[in-house]
């Protein structure tokens, strides 16, 4: 069976850690890191990458356009 799976890549240096990507994710993939970037922001990262479907919700609401989304069909 084929399943759609995704990954996001966050530009951690440009992310401002606003967190608006977190509640719009239907699969609870994203979290703010404990670490921070050089501007002092806790950037977004995938805490649960396996659950990502590449739906793009996070990228659509991201005010700083720092999220790249990848999507691929994989056999399971």
């Amino acid at each position, binding site marked *: 069976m084929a399943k759609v799976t*995704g*990954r996001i*890549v966050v530009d951690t240096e440009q992310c401002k*850690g606003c967190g608006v990507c977190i509640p*719009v994710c239907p699969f609870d993939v994203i979290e703010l890191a404990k670490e921070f970037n050089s501007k002092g922001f806790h950037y977004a990262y995938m805490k649960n990458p396996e659950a990502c479907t590449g739906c793009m919700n996070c990228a659509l*609401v991201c*005010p*700083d356009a720092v999220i790249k*989304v*990848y999507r691929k069909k994989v056999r399971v």
Partner: protein
Amino acid sequence: MDEQQAKTEDIIKKENLVFDKTKLLTDKAFHYCPGCGHGVVHRLLMEVIEELDIQEKTIGIAPVGCSVLAYHYMDIDMQEAAHGRAPALATGIKRTLPEKYVFTYQGDGDLAAIGTAETIHSCNRGENITIIFINNGIYGMTGGQMAPTTLENMKSSTTPYGRNVKQMGNPLKITELVAQLPGTCFVTRQAVHKPAYVRKTKKAIKKAFKYQKQEMGLSFIEIVSNCNSGWKMTPNDANKWLENNMLPFYPLGDLKTPEKK
């Protein structure tokens, strides 16, 4: 390399890329506060201009307000206007260069307070331009003072106990007002704090440019947005507050379309 990492590397490949920042946004990082809706609207505008392939044919007018530096981020021709005067400037540019797509980008203080005259008259004259109106219910840049659009009982730095309409007057639904004017062809209210709204806003912007090409009159797109710094909330709380308080008073949807007047 563990299995999960291998899988991730297999997915993160150029051919699987489905969303990336549009090339029409410059590499300069937005100066906006974390979570601010201005960034989303900037991106949508540039995505539409890229998809319509009109980068060389578009002239934007930047306002006074938080988005005063919009021309640093949008890789198109832009002109800065004096506070509130963007529609007057757009009128002049569009009339001298009618083959260009001309839009203004304005906040609620800019468009609905100091620029009320320019807004109303450009809409009434039916200038063939597009107005993008960001309504965050507040003067963001200057420190969160009350704007004409501030809701009843809403706190701002100049209404610390909430807007008292007996004293300060009623919030102004300027979008409903311009929808009454014969010069507007497309008047709509959208939002950008949820993925579905973002998609709809993008469609609305695209439509507005299409109507401009067909010389149908003025398109007016209000975007109900947030100002978490001015509202003194976290970005996610501000978006929730927007949904529960702004949207009941400023309901989303088309107020006027060329098909349905």
